[in-house]
C-alpha cells in the first residue's frame, strides 16, 4: 500500500513527469553518453526513445548532434531489444548498436546471449533507472504513474539496477505503484473459475486472433528464421485464422516461450485484437518458478529450465 502511495506521488521513470521533453539529470546523462559513443565511433547508431506527434516512440540516432532527441520517461514502454533480434536485418545493416534499456528489457538481451543469437561485444547497453512505465506510450507528455495507468508488469520489478549494462543513468527511482489489479491477481481470478469458463474465456480470446503474428514479430526472443507456424509440411498449425488453428498457434507460442519469456508485454501491446497474452506468459513464468524454481534474470549464464532436468523433478501428474 505504501508503494502505491509513493508510486502515486512519483513521476514516471528516469525522465521524470512533466512535459514530454523534460530534461532530468538522467536524460542529460543519457544524451551525453549517446553523443560520446557516436563521436568516438564506438557505435554507429543509438536506439532510444524520442518525443513524437503521437507520444514517445523509438528513435535511431546516428548523428551526435541529434543525441538531444533522446528522452526517457514513463511513456517509454517499448522493449527496444526487439531491434537486436537477428531477424532485424535492416537494423543490423546500420552497424554496431548502442541500445537504451530498462531493467526489464535487459533480461531479453541476456536471453539472446544465452541462446547464442547475439555477441555481448555486438552491442553497447545504456541502462536507465526506471520507476515503472505507463500501459501506453501515446500521450503528449508523461503523466504521474497511478495504480490506474501503470503497466501491471512493472509491479514487483526485480531488476531495478540492471547488471548487464555498460552504462547506467538516472537517479534511483521509487518502486512502481501497485496496479489496480496485478497480473497474478488476474491469473488467480481466472484460476478460480471452473475449467469450462476458462475454456470459454480463452477460446473466445484466441478466436479473435487474425494471425498477423504481431506478437511473434515484436517478441525480442522469437528468433526463429522460419517459424513453426509457417511450416506446411507437415502443417502442425493451420494457417487460416479459425478458432482451432488459433488455439494451436497460441498454445505453441506460449510453450516456445516457456522459461524464456521475460515478460516485457510487447506481444500483448502490439496485438491488434487485444488478446491478453501477458496472462499466458506470466502463467508460464509461474509454472517454471513453482516447478523448477526458475526466475528469468539478466544473467546470460543462467541455465534455462526447458532443456535442463533434475532426477527428482516433480512428476505428480504422471501415473
Amino acid at each position, binding site marked *: 500500500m505504501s508503494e502505491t502511495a509513493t508510486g502515486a506521488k512519483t513521476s514516471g521513470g528516469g525522465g521524470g513527469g512533466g512535459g514530454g521533453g523534460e530534461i532530468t539529470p538522467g536524460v542529460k546523462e543519457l544524451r551525453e553518453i549517446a553523443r560520446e559513443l557516436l563521436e568516438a565511433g564506438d557505435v554507429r547508431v543509438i536506439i532510444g526513445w524520442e518525443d513524437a506527434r503521437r507520444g514517445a516512440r523509438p528513435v535511431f540516432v546516428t548523428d551526435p548532434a541529434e543525441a538531444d532527441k533522446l528522452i526517457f520517461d514513463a511513456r517509454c514502454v517499448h522493449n527496444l531489444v526487439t531491434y537486436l533480434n537477428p531477424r532485424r536485418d535492416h537494423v543490423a545493416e546500420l552497424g554496431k548498436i548502442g541500445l537504451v534499456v530498462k531493467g526489464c528489457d535487459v533480461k531479453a538481451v541476456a536471453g539472446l546471449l544465452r541462446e547464442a543469437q547475439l555477441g555481448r561485444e555486438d552491442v553497447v547497453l545504456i541502462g536507465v533507472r526506471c520507476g515503472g512505465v505507463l500501459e501506453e506510450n501515446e500521450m503528449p507528455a508523461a503523466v504521474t504513474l497511478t495504480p490506474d495507468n501503470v503497466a501491471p508488469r512493472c509491479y514487483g520489478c526485480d531488476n531495478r539496477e540492471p547488471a548487464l549494462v555498460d552504462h547506467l543513468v538516472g537517479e534511483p527511482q521509487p518502486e512502481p505503484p501497485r496496479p489496480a489489479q496485478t497480473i497474478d491477481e488476474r491469473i488467480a481470478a481466472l484460476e478460480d473459475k471452473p475449467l469450462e469458463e476458462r475454456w470459454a474465456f480463452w477460446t473466445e480470446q484466441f478466436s479473435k486472433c487474425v494471425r498477423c503474428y504481431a506478437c511473434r514479430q515484436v517478441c525480442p526472443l522469437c528468433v526463429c528464421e522460419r517459424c513453426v507456424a509457417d511450416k506446411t509440411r507437415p502443417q502442425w498449425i493451420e494457417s487460416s485464422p479459425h478458432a482451432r488453428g488459433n488455439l494451436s498457434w497460441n*498454445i505453441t507460442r506460449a510453450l516456445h516461450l516457456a522459461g524464456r519469456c521475460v515478460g516485457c508485454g510487447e506481444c500483448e501491446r502490439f496485438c491488434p485484437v487485444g488478446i491478453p497474452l501477458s496472462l499466458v506468459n506470466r502463467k508460464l513464468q509461474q509454472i517454471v518458478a513453482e516447478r523448477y524454481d526458475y526466475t528469468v534474470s539478466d544473467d546470460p549464464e543462467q541455465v534455462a529450465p526447458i532443456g535442463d532436468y533434475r532426477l527428482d523433478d516433480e512428476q505428480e501428474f504422471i501415473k
Partner: protein
Amino acid sequence: MSDARTDFEPRITAFVCNWCTYTGADLAGTSRLHMASNVRLIRLPCTGRIDPLFIVKAFERGADGVIVSGCHPADCHYTSGNYHARRRFAVFHDIMEFIGVDPRRMTFSWVSASEGAKWRDVVNEAVTSVRDLGPFEAYRALAPEAERLA
C-alpha cells in the same frame, strides 16, 4: 450430452516409446491381458521425441483423450530422453489446465517393458475417465464451419 455419454466410446491416441511402453504393450499381448479397445498407439523412439504439438494435433483430429507413456525415470533407453519429456509435459499439462482443458483427458504414465499389466490398467483407467468426461465436443466445436458441415 449426458445421455450420449452412456453409450459413448472415447477415442484415445497414445504416444508411447518404443523401448518400454510399446514393448510393455507387446507383453500385455503375449500375456493375453484383455483391455479396452479404444486406444490407438503411435510408436516413437522415446518420450523425448514427443512434441506437445502431437497432442494438440490429436485433439484437433477429434481425440477425446491422449496417453503419453514411456520408460520410468532412470530406465530411459537413451538415458535422459524421459527426463526432458517430463519437464516438457509438466509445463504443457499445467498450461492446458490453465486454458481449461480437463487434465483427465491427458494421461501421462511410465510403463516399463515388463509392466504389461500396468499398461492394461493405464489404458482401462484412461478410457473410463474419458468416458465419464464425454466426447471432447468443446475442442471439435473449434473446427471451421465448412468442416463441421461436412
